[in-house]
């Protein structure tokens, strides 16, 4: 987790600049992007003018003045919420910018000549695509690119917050480098693949700052709903003037303004953009960079998740899980023999055999003296490896190769041996035969080991309504065995890049939203086709370009958190919209009897809150309306908690809290404010 996570939103470093920004955001040209709050500002301005008039006339200036004041507070609280949400990102962007400035590049003058290292030093900003630069120890990477030559360890903590250095080398899946990272050993030749100003860090800064923040599709749709409601209430309030005139009441513009602002959905209108910004920020704190808010929103809708088996579901290496001796051979003898055979085997499989022999059979690693010992290394031709030591010739390897070594074939190998081999193959494992001299000793069961805890993660996804699909190059038998062990819902065996793409398309035609994690270049088409494509930071440049999110921690199951954040953003919007609309009921009960008390004292029966006077009632409703924005800022920034309990349970819970709560809370709130206003005697 990166250091920026530790900045609290309540720290002065965030709050003080936010206060200044909140005032700057009052600029109507900016505010018009938020129609509800824009209307509030216009109304506040109008009431302020009326207040100034009242000052001259001396009539009720205290009342109109205080209404004007609280209307301005309503607008300010909304802009403040947005400023606070942006604050943390801004601080983070500043530190990224500091790291980016003063980057220089050693541009190779003769990139085609392998040994010619002549270069000129230029500012990183004047680099062009396809320039090749030399990056040596302690140099900062001048831009995004691909390693064309060399191997080096690179410190990427500036981007990922992860201090352990990573290896970057030419070719393969570890060739992508990111501008701003530091080479801490050796050197690299890097071909620049991105224009300065459009690099990963640049995009990250833009994203964090929220400068280029586009409204997401759902945010736009919600804004339309809120604008529509604002219009509806505008109609209701303006026409009320006529209806009141008929009834013999001359309503003042101040009270109509107060009624309008309390009825239009200022709560959600004021917090809408803060919710979106905070959601993106939460994603960044999980070390995921999304290239668009649209993708984050889509993450909440994901139905199917495609995961690569290797490295995601399993450790990626086969490991020894048991020793199966043939008749007449002791299990421990087999373990000892294979331990010898694996001593020089530095592959993960070899090491796992050693580990199993030591842990399960209490064997100690024998000390091999050099005289007369020969290690037989594995080769693709022989498909066999082993050791000649103290007159013993021990071999392990592919079943048919070992049988050939001892001069047997399948029919003469013995029923027990064949049974063991078959059962291992059926369970999706790989049998490794072991022999000494001309005697067959048994079989080692090599198994793709499923990562611990992964099954629970998939169960959590299933509870969210998300199907998991494992993608693997294994044969169907092996794939099925691992699929059932890991608890995925479906698998795609012997998958080629075309098949992956085809599978995604097919699911999408069936009306499903697909998320996919990948890191290799062969994943790129599928990442681009998927609705949510999460590329690993450790992956290739092609993969990172194709996806719409990059996971800096390169953890494939991070998608669970991404989905949760997507859902949280949507839930928070829905909850505050419901709350905001439900609030209106109480506001009517506060304001309507107050408006007509003179003409129709009988309407006092609607004053069920028992508010002191018409003026305190109206002022209290306006104050409550402003304060509720502030009160809900933490919720907007934190988000409504997502629980994987199914949509029906989630909905009834949230409807109870935000729907029913939204109905009741303002009755209590307005009454309390009214008591305070009365006690202070400010009107």
């Amino acid at each position, binding site marked *: 987790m990166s250091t920026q996570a530790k900045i609290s939103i309540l720290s002065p470093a965030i709050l003080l600049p936010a206060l200044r920004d909140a005032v700057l955001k009052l600029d109507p040209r900016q505010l018009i992007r938020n129609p509800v709050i824009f209307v509030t500002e216009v109304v506040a301005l109008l009431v302020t003018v009326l207040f100034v008039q009242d000052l001259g006339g001396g009539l009720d200036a205290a009342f109109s003045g205080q209404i004007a004041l609280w209307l301005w507070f309503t607008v300010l609280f909304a802009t403040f919420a947005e400023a606070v949400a942006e604050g943390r990102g801004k601080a983070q962007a500043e530190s990224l910018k500091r790291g980016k400035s003063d980057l220089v590049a050693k541009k190779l003058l003769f990139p085609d000549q392998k040994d010619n290292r002549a270069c000129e030093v230029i500012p990183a900003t004047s680099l062009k695509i396809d320039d090749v630069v030399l990056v040596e120890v302690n140099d900062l990477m001048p831009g995004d690119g691909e390693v064309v030559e060399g191997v080096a360890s690179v410190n990427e903590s500036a981007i990922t917050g992860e201090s352990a250095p990573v290896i970057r080398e030419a070719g393969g899946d570890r060739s992508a480098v990111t501008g701003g990272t530091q080479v801490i050993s050796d050197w690299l030749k890097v071909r620049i693949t991105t224009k300065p100003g459009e690099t990963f860090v640049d995009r990250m800064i833009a994203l964090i700052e929220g400068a280029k923040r586009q409204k997401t*599709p*759902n945010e736009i*749709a*919600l804004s*339309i*709903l809120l604008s*529509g*409601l604002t*219009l*509806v209430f505008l*109609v*209701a*309030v*303006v*026409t*009320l003037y*006529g*209806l009141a*005139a*008929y*009834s013999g009441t001359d309503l003042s513009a101040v009270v109509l303004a107060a009624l309008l602002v309390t009825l239009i959905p200022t709560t959600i209108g004021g917090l809408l953009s803060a919710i979106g910004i905070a959601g993106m920020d939460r994603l960044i704190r999980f070390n995921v960079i999304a290239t668009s808010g649209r993708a984050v929103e889509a993450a*909440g*809708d994901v*139905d199917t998740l495609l995961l690569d088996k290797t490295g995601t579901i399993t450790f990626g290496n086969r490991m020894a899980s048991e020793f199966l001796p043939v008749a007449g051979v002791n299990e421990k003898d087999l373990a000892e023999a294979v331990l010898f055979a694996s001593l020089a085997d530095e592959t993960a499989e070899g090491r796992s055999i050693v580990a199993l022999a030591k842990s399960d059979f209490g064997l100690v690693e024998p000390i091999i003296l050099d005289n007369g010992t020969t290690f037989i290394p594995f080769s693709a031709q022989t498909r066999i490896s082993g050791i000649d030591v103290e007159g013993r010739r021990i071999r392990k390897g592919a079943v048919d190769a070992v049988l050939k070594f001892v001069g047997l074939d399948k029919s003469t190998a013995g029923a027990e041996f064949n049974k063991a081999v078959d059962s291992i193959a059926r369970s999706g494992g790989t049998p490794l035969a072991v022999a000494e001299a001309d005697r067959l000793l048994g079989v080692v069961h090599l198994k793709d080991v499923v990562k611990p805890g992964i099954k629970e993660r998939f169960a959590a996804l299933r*509870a*969210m*309504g*998300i*199907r998991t699909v494992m993608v693997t190059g294994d044969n169907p038998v092996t794939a099925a065995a691992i699929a059932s062990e890991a608890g995925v819902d479906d698998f795609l065996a012997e998958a080629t890049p075309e098949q992956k793409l085809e599978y995604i398309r097919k699911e999408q*035609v069936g*009306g*499903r*939203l697909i998320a996919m994690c990948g890191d290799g270049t062969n994943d790129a088409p599928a990442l681009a086709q998927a609705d949510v494509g999460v590329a690993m930071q450790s992956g290739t440049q092609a993969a990172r370009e194709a996806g719409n999110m990059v996971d800096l921690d390169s953890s494939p199951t991070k998608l669970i958190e991404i989905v949760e954040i997507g*859902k949280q953003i*949507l*839930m928070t*919007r*829905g*909850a505050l*919209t*419901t709350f905001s*609309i*439900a609030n*209106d*009921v109480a506001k*009517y009960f506060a304001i*309507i009897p107050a408006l*007509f008390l003179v003409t*129709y004292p*009988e*309407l006092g029966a*609607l004053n069920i809150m028992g508010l002191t006077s018409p003026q305190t009632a109206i002022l209290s409703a306006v104050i409550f309306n402003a304060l509720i924005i502030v009160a809900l800022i933490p919720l907007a920034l934190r988000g409504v908690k*997502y629980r994987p309990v*199914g*949509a029906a349970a*989630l*909905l009834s819970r*949230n*409807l109870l809290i*935000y729907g029913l709560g939204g109905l009741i809370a303002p009755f209590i709130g307005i009454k309390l404010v009214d008591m305070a206003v009365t006690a202070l005697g400010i009107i």
Partner: protein
Amino acid sequence: MSFPGWLQIALVLIATLALVKPLGLYMAKVFTGERNLLSPVLGPVERGFYALAGVRTDKEQTWLGYAMGVLLFSLTGFVVLYAMLRLQHLLPLNPQGFAGLSPDLAFNTAASFVTNTNWQSYGGETTMSHLSQMLGLTVQNFVSAATGIAVAMALTRAFVRSGVHELGNFWVDLTRATLYVLLPLAIIVALAFVAMGLPQSLDASFVATTLEGAQQTIATGPVATQEAIKQLGTNGGGFFNVNAAHPFENPTAFSNYLNIIAMLSVSAALVYAFGQMVGSRRQGWALISVSFIMLVVGTGAIYWAESYGNPLLTAVGVDPAMGNMEGKEVRFGQAMSALYAAVTTGLSNGGVNAMHGSLTPLGGLVPMSLIQLGEVLPGGVGSGLYGLLVFAILAVFVAGLMVGRTPEFLGKKVEAREMKFAMLAVLILPLVILGFTAVSAVAEFGTSSILTPGPHGLSEILYAYTSAAGNNGSAFGGLTANTPWYNTTLGIAMLLGRFAYLVPVLAIAGSLVAKPRAAASTGTFPTDRPLFVGLLIGIIIILGGLQFFPALALGPIVEHFVMLAGQSF
């Protein structure tokens, strides 16, 4: 309130619900073009119409084409009806020799019948010739209802289909709605009405000698047929001025049951047909539940308010056990008057069997609110279904977010475009109702029509525009609406309430039909459960009703409190 009263209410509603499924399944077959019960008889007739009109059944329309068809057809109907009313003195079948209508009354009436409102600024038996009634008004009773059904079916197809732009063929839907649904039902119901004693005659009137020996002229005419389609098409325009309170329109308790069942069953069955067509009957029942729960609550509120009576009358010695019987027929009583009032307003029918203006203030508040909620309980034939679906889309959008997915209804994503048109549609009712009411309440040409000053007078105006914009057609009485100002503005209100709502609905359909239908999972917001029913009721009340609260507070609500304080209007 009494047990027999509630029993009657329950029996009528249960009888209606029993009809919903068979009728709904039949309509689903009709509109998906499947072979149905009446295909052998009506199939050739249907094809004959298409051949005559040059309609190609395989050529379907996009939302814009469909909307143009609706508008063109309605405009033609409007012009023809307007001309017929203006010129009725020159046309045949005018035994009483009625004069042509004034321009504003003809405009108002034509708008009223083309929009399925059936607001009547005139007295039927003293204004309309038989030709105007049968060839003018009754024709629109059929086709305006069929137009509503057609639009509802176009919207239904938007949920059924995906990845295409065609919503169906308006001319085909219009023909099928008239031929297969409204006409056969109207024949059955009309025969039943004749059996119950409703007159069916081309005579103008007959003269009777009363018991006192006086001569009385009694108006008559083709009442039974008119009455049948008035209810089935949720039109509500009565043959007689006092509508279903007239003994010839609604002679007995049984004819009253049939009236209510006839108006309620087609609308409710259409909702069921929607469920059937989108592949979820549960969805149909969920929407029907919303309507019926709110209808029962509305009926109960009226029934309670009327039984409670008027404390001022009790104070001067009227037996409070009777409750408020002013403006009600004794052969129906309070329970059936309450049910009729709730159903006719929840349904955009507008026929009345009791005078709504004479209800107690709270009793009168309920019918007015039921219209203002958007005529979706279950609303006019077709128009109720599409209104209900607009609210369902809004409900899903507001609360659906709370399950953590972008909102979708029946697998169709609800996005900016749908929201834009849904809000346009929702905006039209408050704009028209409150706008015109506010102007009428302050201007001399508006207030001069009021019968009862004070809050009741405001209710009269508010009810008139509510009824017009909601395409209901019932009146609060009292208000002299046959003036150039009211005829014209109410006509405009009716046209806006119908077409400024219907076009955005078709636009929503056009947008939804092109979208893929997302597969449901455990994370999908379920819209066929009781939770959704409750949510939808809440959204209808808050988004459909809340904006009218200030106006209602100054009308019926204040009247109620003033009445309790000892003053009546």
